[in-house]
């Protein structure tokens, strides 16, 4: 039960003013610009775009500044802004096969056409704090090689040639959109993927890790991981044809999983899929693992009772804005609820004491 309370306006205003001051911090230290956050904290920006479900690096950087670096708060700000935008329409599906790859690796094929391109990765760093970064300094320019001219083909295409990997059913059905129609269960794969790509990175990571530790038993390899830019095209009704309306950085992960076969399917490899805004490697691998675990029913596998196989559990708890909203509301005034509970506990206490007194009297 909620009760309207008057008062506290002054306290709230003052709290906001203090928040602004604390956000700025020590004024003898230079203020952060949006461009600095966008350029130098780009992986935080990417996470806010992915989970805020809106690709706009400047807005995400602004949200990070406003939220003092609390990324879930920043995602909340982006989600709120997103709802104010008129929807012009939906793009044509992006062609990740045409991606201009900054990074492209495979754990399954060493000699894939296009090669293993490491890109700007943390993978081979020693994870030792680099105290040189504590001082400002110029960065040496990165080395350059001979740029690849042609598109880099998807690695699973080679497995498809041999027919040992499950083929993706092609379709052009308009996918459901959970930002428009409330999610209902069972959800189809399109809705699951939309939910996972905007889901909390920590939650999706935890779910994915659980499948690796034996809860759902999916032994996955990263068939391919690629990061880079793709063009986005949309049909423009007034033109009568599609044009490019922009360019996005995306991370795509395809996992390859062994599959014993079922009553209807021969033994073959199956796949999980991750596609996330920005350079979001951990998230896209995790997404692919969870996607694969949630496909148990369509692949005719057993339900092992693992949480990562439980669609309703995974999808209902992956959204950090929903979760934060419900979790944090319990800190807001619940004076009347609590008052009634206090009354109840006092009454129960009284009754219990009377009963005890009654027994004692009877015993005497």
């Amino acid at each position, binding site marked *: 039960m909620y009760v309207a309370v008057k008062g506290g306006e002054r306290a709230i205003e003052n709290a906001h003013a203090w928040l602004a001051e604390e956000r700025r911090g020590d004024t003898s230290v230079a203020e952060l610009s949006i461009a600095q956050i966008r350029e130098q904290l780009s992986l935080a920006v990417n996470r806010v775009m992915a989970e805020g479900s809106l*690709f706009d690096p400047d807005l995400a950087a602004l949200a990070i500044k406003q939220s003092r670096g609390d990324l879930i708060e920043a995602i909340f700000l982006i989600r709120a802004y997103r709802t104010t935008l008129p*929807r012009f329409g939906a793009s044509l599906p992006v062609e990740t096969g045409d991606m201009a790859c900054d990074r492209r690796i495979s754990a399954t094929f060493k000699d894939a056409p296009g090669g293993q391109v490491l890109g700007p990765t943390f993978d081979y760093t020693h994870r030792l704090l680099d105290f040189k970064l504590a001082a400002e300094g110029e960065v040496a320019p990165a080395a350059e090689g001979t740029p690849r001219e042609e598109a880099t083909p998807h690695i699973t295409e080679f497995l498809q040639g041999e027919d040992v990997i499950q083929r993706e059913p092609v379709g052009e059905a308009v996918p459901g959109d959970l930002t428009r129609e409330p999610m209902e269960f069972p959800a189809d794969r399109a809705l699951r993927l939309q939910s996972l790509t905007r889901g909390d990175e920590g939650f999706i990571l935890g779910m994915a890790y659980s499948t690796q530790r034996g809860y759902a038993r999916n032994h996955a390899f990263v068939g391919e991981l690629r990061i880079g830019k793709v063009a986005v095209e949309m049909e423009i009704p007034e033109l009568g044809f599609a044009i490019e309306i*922009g360019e996005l950085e995306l991370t795509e992960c395809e996992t390859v999983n062994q599959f014993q076969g079922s009553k209807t399917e021969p033994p073959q490899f199956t796949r999980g899929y991750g596609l996330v805004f920005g350079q979001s490697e951990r998230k896209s691998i995790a997404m692919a693992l969870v996607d694969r675990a949630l496909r148990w029913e369509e692949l005719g596998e057993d339900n092992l009772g693992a949480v990562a196989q439980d669609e309703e559990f995974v999808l209902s708890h992956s959204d950090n804005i929903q979760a934060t909203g419900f979790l944090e509301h319990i800190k807001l005034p619940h004076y009347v609820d609590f008052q009634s509970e206090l009354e109840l506990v006092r009454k129960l206490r009284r009754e219990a004491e009377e009963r005890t007194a009654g027994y004692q009297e009877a015993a005497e």
Partner: protein
Amino acid sequence: MANEMNIGNSARKAWMGLMASAPEGAMMALWDAVDDRPKFDWLRAPEVGGVMVRGRMAGTGAPFNVGEMTVTRCSLVLKDGTVGHGYVQGRSKPKAEAAALIDALMQTEAADRVQRDVLSPLADQVAQAKTKRAAKAAATKVEFFTMVRGED
């Protein structure tokens, strides 16, 4: 009328696409150097909106919704009746206006001049930036070599 000129859809698609994702600073610098701007009326004033970006399951399968991106669009008409549309990524209304004006001018006698002064140099800059990135990626490509060859 100007828009009866035979302009291939593919050419229009190319210049609109170039302007949609070109860096605002580079494009506006080139556009600002063009002097005689035509007068126009708005058909649809610049508005910021969202477009739902779709991907395909496993890259090749059925579509699903990935998330939205910001887009700004507008439409205008020149005094001779030529209509220009601007669709650009992000939230810049000046950039959308410039894109729509350039789209309109590209359907008039001014096309060659706009192509030479704005679109061609812009396309060069964009291509250079892309090539530079691809060159850096190429430098991180792993070259495997065999350590020990088994003899038989």
